[in-house]
């Protein structure tokens, strides 16, 4: 098909042809085209269907404010719904599909809704789907959800990647129209670090869409020349295809750069888009203005568009929706469109001007004081009905109608921090006002300076003001300086099905109905009618709705006020908000020093926070995880096992007040801990609840190494820094994390000492006498490598933890395995670790669950009364010390085959099973290969005095009831003989 509606001129590359499809049909366009301009050039006006009534729609605008021409772009996994054809850059091979229609765009069965419009008014859903209430969830909502929504998702993972980045500047200029370009020139020449961002792929703003000159060249040429100069300035960064989507605190702006959206697919390794966080010392908003339509009956037919957009299509893209157009305007801007299109050979059927004193033209007919009252044409405009000033009606034949109701400054970004725009009577429009985001200034049409001269001048002046530039202001190039006065004309009297919000199908009638039904607040109007709630956020519709509402309420528009503008300024892909943080990269991964070795051994890994820890090490022939875990436990208790416990937090605490400091953060005493000794410590929160437990090893008079649980490592370090800096600022204590600096392995089991004696250099005595239970020391291993040894045990066996610098961790693990062969050394994972600590009755995260106290944990006496420590006072609250307080106990099933499950609750042997009779709950459970049955740890009311009692362990959710006996939590070696062996 030839480009029937292609005009001459324009900023397109006619030497190159781009082939594309729309609804499967082949078309051709040129570089520089948008999808909308190329379709218009191909005489396609119908591009979509409306949301509610499925009315045929074509583009209303030529920019990001577009409510109608929204399509599904691309196919397969890259299919993106709700893409504005007016901003989609044409590329070779582009495929687009219309949306919200069935079976086809030209024949849409859902257009029946339009016939039912008398029923489908504002609030239809609220009124209709009230009863029966039970129908809502199962019937109404699914139906409504199916009918709602515009585009469709591919339901496939997005194959593209997105980046996030950070940029800093002295001056961020948003919008590269005349104001923005002249501001950038002023700031750039002055040497400031400038970022100039524009959502368009071609900088210049309206200058590219107009014909009037700047100085002695066309506006578009002046823009191109200015951009070329800016590109030579190393301190100026030009960011085309970049939408500033939000103004956030402290001069921070979000901006989405569409790096590859103009390509069929992103180049290898390149992102589709980048979300920039821009830190600007000063910001200049030069976002321009949006033309506002006039509401009249059937003002939504394909071919009816904003007059300045029609002019943009003609001048920039050399495209026209029709070769015979009419204009409906209330201001001189509409005449510009007529003039420019006439100059390009388009027949102007008439200019219908609401003003009785509208300027006349020798080139085309001007109907003064006339109004468009209706239109015709099922899938595209064919005629407009005009009421003339003398009361007569006239039908004007045209394939397109340009509508101009004046201009609204794009104040959106000035309001992102709840600033309210102010009403300018002279412009009959909202202009930036109130409190702007800090550091923001506004220039050009966004500030109400609608003329080219005004924009150029205010841009330069605002840049000078923002940067504090002194001296004489440079001359502003000569340009048109038409007065910006506007007389409002919102809608044609008597209209009803006149569209305000074309994307959400909100009419003048809907606004009137909402007023009639008592909705007085503009926020209520918005939500009741959905005015401005579509993906275009009402850029072309809000003001019309406000104006009608004000009129009905007998108020002025500023009295009615506006709804709040919120980020993002234009629709934003969710993918760009996620950036690289998706899939496996959702969070960083932490690997232990023995990871490479463990992987070689075929370990099964488990995520513990960001850590990957070996969960168990399956051997050939083991088909169930329990087989591996049972073997690891049994082998460790029988001889020796090794487990990587690097993930436990390690904090180096130094200083002359280190002991005093630990005495404050731990509830038990540390002041008298001897050098070379380790002590178990329990930290309480301020409210007396247990926070974390671990050990502190005193390596020197003024140095401790504190360990924390894996999960709480960061939090405990943060807490200790808080105590150091805020609660004990006078103390001489220094903290630093060494978690990752040292590879630390638990070596546990009766043969652990014999194994370590082969590793630890012989001048270090690690016999029971030389290195008793809870000893610690700096030692050397393997012929002189510095290392640390702690005689501590989580498993309940004779055990040590040995640490070497992380880079040697892999080699140490391999050495332990090699030297341990004679003892059948067994690596064990977190599951076996868990089983052994439950067998020993050691509390872990399940027990330190944020609700338990030292008393609950059976450690009430550890809370020292001889000193003050964090949480010790509040741990004495009566509520935490009742006679029947929960106490940690062990639980054994009466029948060895029975399951014990964590999460189950404890009930007396007989009686009701309900919350009122709850006796406690099970926190940890495991199969004990040592005992040959399952065991559990739990909290039981007055548990210390209920040893031997039979209880029911119930889990109504899983329909489980098991009889259990209350026993000591220390299932293995309750006397602690092994650890001291």
């Amino acid at each position, binding site marked *: 098909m030839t480009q029937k509606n292609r005009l001459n001129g324009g900023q397109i590359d006619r030497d190159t042809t781009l082939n594309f499809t729309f609804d499967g049909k082949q078309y051709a366009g040129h570089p520089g085209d948008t999808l909308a301009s190329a379709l218009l050039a191909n005489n396609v006006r119908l591009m979509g269907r409306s949301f509610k009534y499925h009315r045929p729609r074509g583009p209303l605008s030529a920019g990001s404010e577009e409510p109608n021409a929204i399509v599904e772009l691309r196919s397969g996994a890259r299919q993106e719904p709700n893409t504005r054809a007016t901003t989609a850059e044409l590329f070779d091979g582009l495929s687009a599909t219309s949306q919200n229609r069935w079976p086809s765009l030209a024949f849409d069965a859902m257009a029946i809704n339009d016939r039912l419009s008398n029923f489908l008014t504002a609030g239809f859903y609220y009124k209709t789907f009230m009863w029966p209430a039970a129908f809502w969830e199962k019937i109404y909502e699914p139906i409504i959800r199916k009918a709602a929504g515009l585009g469709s998702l591919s339901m496939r993972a997005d194959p593209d*990647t997105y980046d996030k980045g*950070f940029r800093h500047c002295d001056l961020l200029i948003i919008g590269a129209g005349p104001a923005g370009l002249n501001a950038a020139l002023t700031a750039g020449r002055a040497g400031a670090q400038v970022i100039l961002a524009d959502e368009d792929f071609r900088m210049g703003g309206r200058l590219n869409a107009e014909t009037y000159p700047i100085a002695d060249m066309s506006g578009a040429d002046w823009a191109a020349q200015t951009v070329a100069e800016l590109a030579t300035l190393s301190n100026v960064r030009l960011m085309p295809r970049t939408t500033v989507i939000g103004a956030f605190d402290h001069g921070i702006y979000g901006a989405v750069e569409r790096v590859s959206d103009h390509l069929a697919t992103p180049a290898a390794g390149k992102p589709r888009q980048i979300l920039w*966080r821009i830190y600007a010392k000063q910001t200049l908003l030069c976002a321009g203005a949006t033309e506002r339509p006039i509401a009249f009956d059937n003002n939504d037919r394909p071919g009816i568009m904003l007059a300045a957009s029609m002019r943009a299509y003609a001048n920039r893209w050399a495209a026209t929706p029709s070769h015979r157009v009419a204009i409906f305007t209330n201001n001189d801007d509409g005449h510009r469109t007529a003039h420019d299109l006439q100059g390009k050979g388009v027949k102007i059927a008439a200019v219908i001007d609401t003003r009785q004193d509208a300027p006349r033209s020798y080139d085309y007919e001007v109907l003064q004081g006339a109004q468009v009252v209706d239109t015709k044409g099922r899938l595209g405009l064919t005629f407009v009905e005009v009421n003339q000033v003398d009361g007569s009606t006239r039908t004007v034949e045209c394939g397109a109608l340009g509508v101009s109701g004046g201009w609204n400054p794009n104040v959106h970004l000035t309001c992102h921090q709840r600033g309210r725009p102010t009403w300018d009577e002279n412009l009959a429009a909202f202009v930036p006002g109130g409190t702007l985001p800090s550091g923001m200034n506004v220039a050009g049409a966004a500030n109400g300076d609608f003329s080219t001269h005004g924009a150029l001048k205010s841009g330069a002046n605002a840049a000078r003001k923002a940067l504090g530039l002194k001296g004489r202001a440079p001359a502003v190039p000569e340009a048109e300086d038409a007065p910006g006065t506007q007389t409002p004309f919102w809608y044609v009297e008597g209209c009803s099905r006149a569209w305000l919000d074309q994307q959400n199908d909100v009419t003048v009638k809907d606004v009137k109905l909402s007023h009639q039904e008592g909705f007085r607040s503009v926020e209520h109007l918005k939500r009741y009618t959905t005015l401005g709630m579509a993906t275009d956020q009402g850029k072309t519709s809000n003001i019309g709705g406000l104006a009608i509402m004000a009129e009905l309420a007998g108020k002025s528009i500023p009295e009615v006020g506006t709804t709040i503008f919120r980020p993002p300024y234009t629709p934003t892909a969710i993918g760009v908000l996620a950036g690289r943080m998706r899939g496996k990269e959702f969070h960083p991964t932490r*690997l232990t020093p023995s990871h490479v070795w463990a992987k070689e051994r075929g370990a099964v890994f488990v995520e513990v926070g960001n850590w990957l820890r070996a969960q168990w090490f399956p051997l050939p022939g083991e088909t169930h995880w329990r087989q591996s875990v049972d073997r690891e436990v049994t082998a460790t208790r029988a001889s020796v096992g090794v487990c990587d416990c*690097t993930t436990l937090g390690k904090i180096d605490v130094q200083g002359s007040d280190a002991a005093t400091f630990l005495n404050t953060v731990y509830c038990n005493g540390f002041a008298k801990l001897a050098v070379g000794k380790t002590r178990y410590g329990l930290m309480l929160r301020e409210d007396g609840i247990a926070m974390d437990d671990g050990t502190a090893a005193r390596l020197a008079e003024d140095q401790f190494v504190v360990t924390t649980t894996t999960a709480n490592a960061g939090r405990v370090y943060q807490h200790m820094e808080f105590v150091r800096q805020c609660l004990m600022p006078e103390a001489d204590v220094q903290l630093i994390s060494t978690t990752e*600096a*040292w590879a630390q392995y638990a070596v546990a089991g009766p043969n652990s000492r014999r194994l370590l004696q082969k590793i630890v250099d012989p001048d270090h005595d690690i016999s029971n006498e030389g290195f008793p239970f809870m000893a610690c020391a700096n030692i050397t291993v393997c*012929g002189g490598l510095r290392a640390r040894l702690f005689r501590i045990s989580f498993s309940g066996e004779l055990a040590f933890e040995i640490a070497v610098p992380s*880079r*040697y961790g892999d080699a140490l693990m391999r050495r332990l395995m090699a030297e341990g062969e004679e003892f059948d050394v067994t690596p064990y994972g977190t599951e076996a670790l868990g089983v052994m600590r439950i067998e020993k009755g050691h509390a872990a995260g399940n027990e330190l669950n944020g609700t338990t106290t030292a008393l609950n944990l059976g450690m009430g006496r550890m809370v020292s009364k001889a000193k003050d420590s964090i949480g010790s006072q509040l741990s004495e609250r009566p509520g935490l010390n009742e006679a029947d307080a929960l106490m940690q106990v062990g639980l054994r099933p009466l029948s060895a085959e029975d399951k014990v499950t964590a999460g189950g609750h404890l009930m007396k042997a007989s009686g009701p099973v309900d919350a009122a009779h709850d006796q406690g709950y099970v926190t940890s459970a495991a199969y004990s290969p040592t005992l040959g049955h399952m065991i559990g740890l739990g909290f039981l009311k007055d548990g210390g005095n209920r040893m031997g009692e039979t209880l029911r362990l119930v889990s109504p959710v899983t329909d489980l009831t098991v009889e259990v006996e209350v026993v000591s939590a220390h299932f293995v070696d309750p006397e602690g003989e092994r650890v001291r062996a």
Partner: protein
Amino acid sequence: MHDLTPITALGGSAARVDSVGDVTLTEVPDVALASVAARRGHEGVCAQTLESVLGTAAPSPGHAAEGAEYAAFWTGPDQWMLSADFNGYEDIAARIKSEVGDTASVTEQTDAWVCFDLVGPHINAVLELLCNVDLAGFQTGRATRTSIHHLGCYVISTDAGQSVRILGPRASAGSLHHAIITVMASAL
């Protein structure tokens, strides 16, 4: 002399090197690190000792300094990280402690970190996709703590616009490396 063979933070026996265009990312395992925090009341003496150790004043906030044997960057009020060549200075913590005595707490940090050098003419294009650093003001000798890929890192400008050193948590070396080389492909 012990007989344990080290591996690099990325798990290899040799340092990993990746290039995209003329920018190269090199894993640098041969860096010895020790943190130095002045003890209360000894801040002045500690700073003076560090000056003699470094041969130049201890770096001020946001800065790094390089001496003949040791380099240093500021990490907090009266706190610094000192570095030296791992070969010959593996015992950096003990060496520094013997200099500062009771005026400072010294902690070995060598293997708490993975160290990368990012070198080439377009590193700023890479850095701006990685971390929130004002690169225009990031002159040679500047150092900052920043977040890369949700990891707390130090970035030190060793040659403005041409070379930076990045220190990140060692256990996450793989994630950090992945983040940097992915962005190198993206930016270059």
